[in-house]
C-alpha cells in the first residue's frame, strides 16, 4: 500500500490553530479549579510545610506561585474542621524552618509539647503555615486561603521587617497573585495600594506555562517526599549570619531616627482579628539575633539598628495592649550562638526555647478550648 503524502504546511497550520485555540481558551477554563486537584493527602501524605525550595532535585520541593496548589499539597487540606482543636502557626522562614528538618520546626515542636502536656482527650493539631519572606500581607493572603480549614487559634509570628509598610513588595508570592491579594486588601479594608491585575494575555496558556509546569512538578515531587520525608536540602556547611556589623544605623527608607505607627502595617493583623472573632489570635514578636560583634552597640544585627528595633517593640507592645490583642515578645529569648544563616533563623535548640515559652503561654487556651 502506498503511503499517503503528507502536506507539511497543512500539518504545521493545524498544529498552530489548535495551539491558538487552547491558548486563548485557557483563561476561560479557570472555573474548573485544576490547582485544587492534588495527589497529596490521597496518594502521598500531605506536606508538613508549604512547598518552597530552589533545588528540586535535592530538596524534593519547589517554589511555585499557585497558592491553591500549595495548600492542596499541605497536610492541612486533609484536616477535618470541627474535629478537635487546630492551631495555625504563620510567619516567615523562621517558622517555615529554613535549615531545620520538619520535626525540628516551631510548629512541629509545639505539636510535640501539646501532645506531651495536654490533659484533655480532644485532638489538637498544629499546622505549619509559615512561608519564607517577611511580610504580614503575605501571611494574610495565605491565611485567608487557609481559613477554609477553620482554625481555632492562629499564632502569628511577626518582626519589624514583616510589619514595615510595603514589605509585601519583597514577597513574590504576593506579587504573583494579584487577584487574590487585591481581594484580601479589599475584604479587610487594608491601607495598601491594589496590585495591577493580570491581563487576559497574561492568563493564557503560553503565559501560564511555567506555573502549569510547576504544578505538575509539585505532584511528581510528591513521590520523593513520600519516599524520603525530605522537603528541604540542608547543606552541611553554610555561611553563618553576620555578627560583625557596619557602622551604618539607618533602616530601609526611614529618615532621621523616627519610626511611627504609620510606618507599620498593623492594620493587617487588627483587621483579621476584627473580621474573625471566633479565632483566637496570638501575635508573637519573633526572636532576632542580638550580636555581640563589631558595632553591636549601634545595631542588633544585619537587619535592625538598635534605635529602630527598640522603637518598634515599644510601639507594637503599646498598640496590642491598647487593642487587647494577645501578644508575646520573644525577641531576645534565643542566645546569639544558636542562630544559623540569618538574623532570624535559629537551630533546633533555639526552637526548643521558643516552643517552651510559647507553650506555657498558650497552654490554658488548649486545655480549655
Amino acid at each position: 500500500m502506498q503511503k499517503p503524502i503528507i502536506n507539511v504546511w497543512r500539518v504545521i497550520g493545524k498544529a498552530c490553530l489548535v495551539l491558538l485555540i487552547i491558548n486563548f481558551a485557557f483563561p476561560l477554563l479557570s472555573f474548573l479549579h485544576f490547582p485544587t486537584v492534588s495527589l497529596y493527602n490521597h496518594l502521598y501524605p500531605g506536606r508538613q510545610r508549604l512547598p518552597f525550595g530552589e533545588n528540586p532535585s535535592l530538596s524534593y520541593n519547589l517554589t511555585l506561585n499557585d497558592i491553591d496548589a500549595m495548600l492542596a499539597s499541605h497536610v492541612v487540606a486533609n484536616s477535618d474542621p470541627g474535629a478537635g482543636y487546630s492551631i495555625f502557626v504563620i510567619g516567615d522562614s523562621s517558622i517555615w524552618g529554613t535549615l531545620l528538618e520538619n520535626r525540628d520546626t516551631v510548629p512541629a515542636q509545639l505539636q510535640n509539647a501539646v501532645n506531651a502536656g495536654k490533659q484533655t482527650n480532644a485532638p489538637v493539631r498544629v499546622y505549619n503555615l509559615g512561608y519564607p519572606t517577611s511580610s504580614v500581607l503575605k501571611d494574610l493572603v495565605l491565611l485567608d486561603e487557609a481559613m477554609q480549614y477553620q482554625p481555632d487559634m492562629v499564632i502569628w509570628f511577626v518582626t519589624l521587617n514583616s510589619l514595615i509598610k510595603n514589605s509585601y513588595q519583597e514577597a513574590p508570592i504576593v506579587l504573583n497573585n494579584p487577584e487574590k491579594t487585591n481581594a484580601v486588601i479589599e475584604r479587610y479594608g487594608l491601607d495598601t495600594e491594589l496590585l495591577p491585575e493580570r491581563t487576559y494575555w497574561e492568563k493564557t496558556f503560553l503565559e501560564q506555562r511555567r506555573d502549569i509546569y510547576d504544578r505538575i512538578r509539585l505532584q511528581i515531587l510528591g513521590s520523593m517526599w513520600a519516599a524520603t520525608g525530605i522537603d528541604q536540602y540542608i547543606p552541611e556547611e553554610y555561611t553563618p549570619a553576620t555578627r560583625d556589623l557596619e557602622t551604618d544605623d539607618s533602616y530601609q527608607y526611614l529618615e532621621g531616627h523616627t519610626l511611627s505607627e504609620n510606618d507599620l502595617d498593623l492594620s493587617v493583623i487588627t483587621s483579621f482579628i476584627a473580621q474573625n472573632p471566633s479565632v483566637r489570635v496570638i501575635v508573637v514578636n519573633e526572636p532576632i539575633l542580638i550580636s555581640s560583634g563589631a558595632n553591636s552597640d549601634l545595631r542588633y544585627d544585619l537587619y535592625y539598628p538598635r534605635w529602630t528595633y527598640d522603637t518598634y517593640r515599644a510601639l507594637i507592645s503599646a498598640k496590642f495592649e491598647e487593642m487587647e490583642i494577645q501578644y508575646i515578645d520573644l525577641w531576645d529569648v534565643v542566645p546569639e550562638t544558636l542562630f544559623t544563616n540569618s538574623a532570624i533563623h535559629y537551630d533546633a535548640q533555639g526552637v526548643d526555647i521558643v516552643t517552651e515559652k510559647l507553650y506555657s503561654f498558650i497552654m490554658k487556651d488548649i486545655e480549655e478550648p
Partner: protein
Amino acid sequence: MNLIQITSAALGSLAFRFLDKDRNKEKAIFIANIFFLFLLQPNSSLRSLNVLLPWATIFLILAVGLGVSGTSSRQEIAQIALFSLSGFLPFVLPEFFPGLKTTVLDKNINQTVLGIFLLGSVCCIAVLARIKQKRSYLLFFLAFILVLFVILKQPAISTWASRGWRILFQQKGELASSLDLRWIGYSYIAFRLIHVIREFQKGRFQDISLLRYMNFCLFFPALSAGPIAKYDDFSQQMQQPVNTVESSLPEGGERLVIGLFKKFVLADSLALVALNSSNAGQITSTGWMWLALILYSLQIYFDFSGYTDIAIGLGLFLGIRLPENFDHPYLKSNLTKFWDSWHITLSQWIRAYFFNPLNRSLRKSKLAKSPNSILFLTQVSTMLVIGLWHGITWTFAVWGLWHGLGLFIQNRWSTYARNHFLKVRENPKLEKGIQILSTVGTFLYVSVGWVWFLSTSMPQACDIFLKLLGKGF
C-alpha cells in the same frame, strides 16, 4: 544538547534543506558538524581543554582518515582545514544568541598552548600523509584510540591525567577530578573510527572521500548519544540529493517532536523521582525503593531513546536516515530479544568487532571445546565489554556480567524449554500467559541490573539491594 541547541540545529537543518539544493551538501554539513563539535564540548576546569579537545578530535579523525582514504588531494585537506575554522563560531555566536551555549565559555585560553598544539598537529598530519605503511599506521591508531578510551573511562587514571594537566598549566593539582576530562562524543567517535579501520583492514574500503568520512565520524545529530551508523550506509545517502529521501521531512519532524517529548517531558520529569546515587540512601521503605528503581528504568529508556529520536529526526532533515537504536525493549519476552532491541547499533557493533571474532577464535582454539563453554565465554565477555564501555569501574563490570550471565542462562533455558514444553505451544492462552510473565520477568531482571549501573560504588549497590529486600533501613 539542550532545547535551544536542538531548535537551532533543526532550524539550521531546515534552512539548509530549502536553500542549499544539494550543491554544497557535504561542505555545509561538515561546517555544521565542526560548529556543534565545539559548541557541545562541555567546559572543563582544566585550562584551554574546551578548545583543545575538539581540535584533538578533528586531528585524530583526520590522522586515521589519511590512513584509509588512499588518495586524498591536497585541495581536500586544505578545504577541511579551512572549514574547521567554523569551530571558532561557538565562541562568537553566543554573544548574540545567549542560551546557545549552556555553560559560560572559558575564554581564558592559553594562546601559546593552542598555537603549539595546532602547529604540532598540522606537522604531524603532514608527516602522516607521507607514510606508506598503512597497516602498522592503522594498528598504531587503533591502539592509540583504545589507550585514550581507557584514560577517559577509568576514574583513577583520568584523575591522574587531570592532575598532570593541572600541574603543567599551574593549576591546583589537588582539585583534580575524573570529571575534568569530559570529551564530547569520544565514545561514539572511537566506535566509528574502529569500524572504519577494521573495515579498511578487511579490504572493504578501497578509496573513501576524506570529507565524507569526516562527516560520518562527526555527524552532529549523533555526536553525543549515537546511534552508530555504518560508513557504507552513510556514504550512500550522502551521495543522494536531499530531496530524494522519501517523505523524510514530515517523518523527521515527527521523530523530532516525539524525541523532544520523551527527553524533555518524560525523562526529565522522571529524573526528579527516579532512583539515583543521591536519593538511594534517603528512601525509607522497600515499596518506594522498588518504585524508584522502576522509574529509573523508564527514565533511562526515555532519555536515551528520546535522544535517538532527536538524532534521527535531525538526520532526516539533512537527508540522512540514521539507524534505529531502540525497538520497544521493555516489551520483549527474554533477555536476548531485549539486547536485540536496546541500543541496537551498539549491540551490532560489538557483535561485529568483538563477539564474532572471539567466537571464531575460540572455536579454532584448543582451550574451549564444548559449545556451551564457548557460548558462556563469548556472551559473558561481550557483555563485560559493553559494561566497561560505559566506564571502567567495578559497578559497570558487574552490570555487564549480570547481563552476560543472564543471557547465557536464558539461552540454555530457552533451548531446554523448547524441547521439553511442547504442549505449551498447543495452548494459545497458556502461551500468551507465559509470554506476559516472561516480559515482566525480563523487565524486572533488567531493572534490577540497573542498580549496578546507577551506583557509584559496590558498597552503595549492595546497600540498595539490601533495601530492595526490605533490609538495611
